[in-house]
């Protein structure tokens, strides 16, 4: 009887040990995964709170049908030019040209720098050579947006 009790206790103890090991490994992995996701979310939220953009000038050339939008990064987050979205009269437009403080090749849009976006009428259906657009909206990579309804028309 004594051996039986000892043997079965050892088997159950082994079972509990294996089960605890499995549970601990999974719980630790899951907790790490969720914590990491929350940490990154917190960092992104901070970046978003530190992002301020302003559409400083919107000029539409009625003769050539080109729209030039100047946006200034007034926050403290460095943004990406490639990931910035432009909406003209509520239609998504891919800019034909981009330049940060005159540099057309960079993707880095640092604080206090101005981003110039150029759109030609013949590359987008949102623009009509004769009609000046009413509303321009620029959205940064993290969803922070700025719009301008004062479109200056030049010829």
């Amino acid at each position: 009887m004594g051996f039986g009790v000892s043997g079965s206790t050892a088997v159950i103890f082994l079972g509990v040990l294996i089960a605890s090991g499995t549970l601990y490994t999974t719980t630790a992995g899951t907790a790490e995964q969720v914590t990491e996701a929350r940490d990154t979310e917190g960092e992104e939220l901070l970046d978003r709170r530190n992002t301020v953009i302003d559409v400083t000038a919107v000029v539409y050339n009625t003769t050539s049908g080109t729209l030039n939008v100047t946006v200034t990064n007034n926050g403290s987050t460095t943004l990406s030019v490639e990931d910035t979205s432009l909406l003209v009269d509520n239609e998504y437009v891919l800019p034909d040209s981009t330049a940060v403080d005159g540099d057309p090749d960079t993707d880095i849009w640092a604080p206090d720098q101005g981003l110039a976006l150029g759109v030609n009428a013949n590359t987008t259906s949102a623009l009509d050579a004769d009609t000046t657009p009413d509303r321009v909206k620029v959205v940064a990579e993290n969803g922070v947006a700025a719009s301008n309804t004062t479109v200056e028309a030049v010829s």
Partner: protein
Amino acid sequence: MADVSVPSLILFIASIVIAAGVAGVLIDTVTGISGALDDRGADVAENIRTDVEVISDSESAVYNGADGTVTLYVKNTGRRAIPATNESFDVIVNAQYQSNVTVAIVDGSAEWTPHGVVEVQIGGLNLDAGDHQVRLVVSGDEETFRFNT
């Protein structure tokens, strides 16, 4: 001596078998719970990494009365690529679930990667003049867009 040993041996074997059975069931149950916990953790992490933003203007005409469609641009502001299909979106317009939804990537990419933009077109609508509300749900992330026709 043999009279004592045989029942003891039988009891010993029986107790070991029962203990092994109990341990087996315990391990099996805990493995099941671990699997479920792992899946749930992955789902929660995926939901945290998912974030979308409606970037369309409420002031511009998002509703096309002639076609009965609402067109919205949605930006992926999260950290994971989301399949750009109507199955990724649950669309509710004025508290009514909409199934006539088409999704198209407009930024020239092959997938709806982080910072990308898709066009969500909700068809089959007949909206009266007044205020309306569109609710988009993508992997647990809810976005509400209000506009006026």
